């Protein structure tokens, strides 16, 4: 009978002495790459050495306390929201049997295709004082303003709900993958020992899935911290809105960068938390024997409860806002959808495809580098490079723009002086610069997924493969990559969907005559033409759905012991 082993610290893979040189070349490459990717973040941090005490005094006296409080409350609220929605639905769909389970399995991912700012627009349109719901209530009951209480959508609480609705899929996705990859035998053992579903969940499955759950949570919280569109529209002052206000309104880029640096401290704390949670215990499955897990067949109120728990996030996170978008689109599509619109869509798909591939390759390279060399320096470099995820896109964009323009202008100046040739701007204002910015911004998404995937492969595999004469690179391609096919696809698609939705960096860095769906949506929405913006918004959602469905299917298939006929 096989068992799962926990709490056994594993030694790093032993390296045969003859190969030491190659490994350190790998390590050097990882550090160099991380430095390059960390450059934009470092440029922003560099502003810390250029203090503007007077602006800080103003911020501290007036709005800073608000920024800190609101950001913390927002994070706490979103954490509760995404954990509740994500873990419960992941557990239900992966271990229980109830009507519609197959449908819920993939449909629960759908809200991920909707950008937070778009869901915010739609709910405001529906639930605002002047919107159809409240107007109808007033018409029915003859109320007028002040006669009744109705929750205010545009508030901190509203922002928590909006962000939770679109971010819980991160937790769902990763915890479900973890539940599915759990050796069936572990759950079997817990059942034969007489543990009921609840007890199995809390004492066996949940602790085993903890690293994956925390990873999902970290992603959701980083996304929350970087969110600008939603909180700005709701009038909730957070760090992100503060950065923009200080930069644009006060015209003080140094103080804005310092706020951004402070924001990064939050992120650092989050990352430490995640590391700490992983270090507590290492979880590996030693068993490679799987069989199909008999699901808990839910009956009566439990069954109804499961259906309800899985429907609510889909209804509120996807169907309702989707229906609103569709209604607006039907009214305006005739005007808004033309040849140019098709071009926008193709641009968006192309740039998202390129960026997600690049990011996957980078993440794989770096995660494996860390596995080969679990040195502190590598780990730290990789962490810093991944911090871009929590930094607002506009800040990243400036961090990318400054070094690129410097490089271009220096090269141009030098060539002019030496040879009388002018190269102009080689990198600035090209798609390459934009894709680099995406890599900086979304590396963490890919990296977290890849690391979690690699972490589930026992290091004895590496040892075995290496002792059979494979080089580290061959181990990665011939052993790990096939084992983690599902994980790699997950990483690829997560970034793809993120790039589809990305706005601020795209807005700042894109080349001439190049627009994306997100840019179009934003431009119209910021002109307060929500209905006109809806075709582009709906296209983002639709373009995001296909990868999301693929993703879900691949996870189901990746389950050990899963019957392919199912």
């Amino acid at each position, binding site marked *: 009978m096989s068992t799962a082993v926990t709490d056994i610290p594993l030694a790093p893979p032993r390296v045969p002495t003859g190969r030491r040189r190659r490994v350190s070349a790998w390590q050097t490459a990882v550090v160099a790459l991380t430095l390059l990717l960390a450059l934009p973040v470092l440029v922003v941090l560099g502003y810390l050495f250029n203090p503007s005490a007077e602006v800080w005094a*103003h911020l501290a006296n*007036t709005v800073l306390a608000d920024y800190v409080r609101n950001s913390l409350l927002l994070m706490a609220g979103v954490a509760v929201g995404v954990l509740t929605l994500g873990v419960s639905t992941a557990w239900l769909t992966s271990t229980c049997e109830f009507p519609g389970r197959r449908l819920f399995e993939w449909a629960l991912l759908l809200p991920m295709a909707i950008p937070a700012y778009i869901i915010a627009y739609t709910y*405001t349109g529906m639930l*605002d*004082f*002047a919107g159809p719901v409240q107007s109808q209530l007033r018409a029915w009951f003859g109320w007028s*303003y002040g006669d009744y209480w109705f929750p205010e959508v*545009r*508030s901190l609480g509203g922002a928590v709900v909006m962000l939770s609705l679109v971010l819980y899929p991160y937790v769902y996705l990763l915890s479900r993958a973890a539940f599915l990859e759990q050796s069936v035998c572990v759950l079997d053992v817990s059942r034969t020992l007489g543990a009921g579903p609840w007890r199995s969940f809390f004492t066996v499955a949940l602790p085993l899935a903890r690293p994956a759950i925390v990873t999902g949570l970290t992603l959701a919280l980083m996304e929350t911290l970087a969110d600008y569109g939603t909180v700005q*529209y709701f*009038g909730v002052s957070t760090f992100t809105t503060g950065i*923009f*206000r200080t930069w*644009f*309104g*006060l*015209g*003080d880029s140094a103080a804005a960068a310092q706020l951004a640096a402070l924001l990064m401290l939050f992120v650092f704390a989050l990352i430490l938390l995640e590391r700490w949670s992983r270090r507590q215990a290492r979880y590996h499955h030693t068993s490679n024997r799987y069989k199909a897990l008999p699901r808990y067949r839910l009956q009566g109120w439990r069954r109804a409860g499961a259906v309800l728990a899985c429907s609510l996030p889909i209804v509120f996170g996807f169907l309702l806002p989707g229906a609103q978008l569709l209604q607006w689109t039907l*009214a*305006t599509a005739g005007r808004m959808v033309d040849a140019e619109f098709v071009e926008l869509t193709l641009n968006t798909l192309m740039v998202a*495809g*390129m960026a997600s*591939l*690049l990011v*996957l*390759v980078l993440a794989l390279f770096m995660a494996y580098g860390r596995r080969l060399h679990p040195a502190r320096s590598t780990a730290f470099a990789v962490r810093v490079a991944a911090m871009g995820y929590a930094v607002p896109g*506009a800040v990243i*964009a*400036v961090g990318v*723009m*400054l070094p690129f*323009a410097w490089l*271009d*202008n220096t090269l*141009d100046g030098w060539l002019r002086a030496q040879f009388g040739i002018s190269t*102009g*701007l080689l990198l*600035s*204002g*090209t*798609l*390459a610069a934009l*894709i680099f910015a995406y890599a900086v911004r979304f590396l963490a998404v890919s990296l977290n997924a890849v690391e979690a995937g690699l972490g589930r492969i026992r290091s004895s595999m590496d040892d075995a493969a290496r002792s059979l004469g494979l080089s580290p690179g061959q181990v990665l*391609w011939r052993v790990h*990559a096939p084992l983690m*096919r599902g994980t790699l696809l997950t990483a690829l698609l997560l970034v793809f969907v993120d790039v589809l939705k990305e706005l601020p960096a795209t*807005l*700042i*860095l*894109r*080349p001439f*005559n*190049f627009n994306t769906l997100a*840019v*179009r949506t934003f*431009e*119209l929405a*910021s002109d*307060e*033409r929500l209905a006109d913006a809806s075709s582009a918004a709906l296209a983002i959602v639709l373009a995001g759905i296909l990868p999301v469905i693929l993703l879900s299917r691949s996870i189901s298939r990746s389950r050990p012991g899963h019957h392919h006929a199912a």
Partner: protein
Amino acid sequence: MRAVSFQRLALALLLAVLAQPGAAASEVNLYSSRQEKLIKPLLEEFTKKTGIKVNLVTGKDDAIIKRLETEAANSPADVLFTADAGRLHRAQALGLLQPIQSQSLEEAVPAAYRDPSGHWFGLSLRARPIMYVKDKVDPATLSTYEALAEPQWKGRICIRSSDNIYNQSLVASMIATQGVEKTEEWARGFVANFARRPTGGDRDQIKAAAAGQCDIAIANTYYLAGMLNSEDAAEREAAERLAVFWPNQNGRGTHVNVSGAGVTRSAKNKDNAVRLLEFLASDEAQRWYAEVNHEYPVKPGVAWSDTLKAWGEFKADSVNVAKLGERNADAVRLMDRAGWK
């Protein structure tokens, strides 16, 4: 094997990036914080007339300016187009614009709406008056922006967040005429009269007033005009419940800002850039602003849309719009202190 196909695909895509099409012979490059939909038809008209191709990047004002600044002398941009004068002023202060001499521009654009030395020119006006709910407010009780701080307006005013440039410019214009201290005192009283915490955009303020949440909304006129001419019956109905009141007519005039453009210092197609600006100030382009966007043309004598005509003539604040840029940071701080969220 999977890995190989990834690599091939990545390589192919990289080549696709590097193989960008070369520059056309006669073109002009535009960095704009005016949205594509709001200028593209004009740019297409320009290309049709002159054969000059217009390349466009849009973005937020400050980000676009930052891009211009970092790209410095090698920037491909020939023209900077922004949605408010404050930003043009900032670009000028950073040395990103160059002065141009053009008789037709000087004739078309009144002195208050352009830089005296020719670094930039206003191209359309955006007015920010008081809008009131017709059946709840007697316009005789309205007079100035300043009077909205009086206690009789307690809980009756809707306005968006102070993050917004329109509000920053409005407060900057008050600072420019009456100083920080008086303006701050006004802001405290004004904020105390808000019907709700500032949320949403200008249209949202108009809708909230129409639905009964407040009696007065402060918003730019083209939003109200857009709603009045909307395809959506509910929007039209909401907008029709409000009327425009032009404040400060006996004093400095109603607050206005401009959208405008200047030729960049790095311009490699300077002649084309000047031609584009001259085209944007021509009767034809100015009429387009007034009829399609419902903005006020800068050029005197250009016909207005029926919606604009219905609101009547008004006296606009005569302070040079460049002042708004100079006072912007002061305005933001003041609003922070006054608790204007």
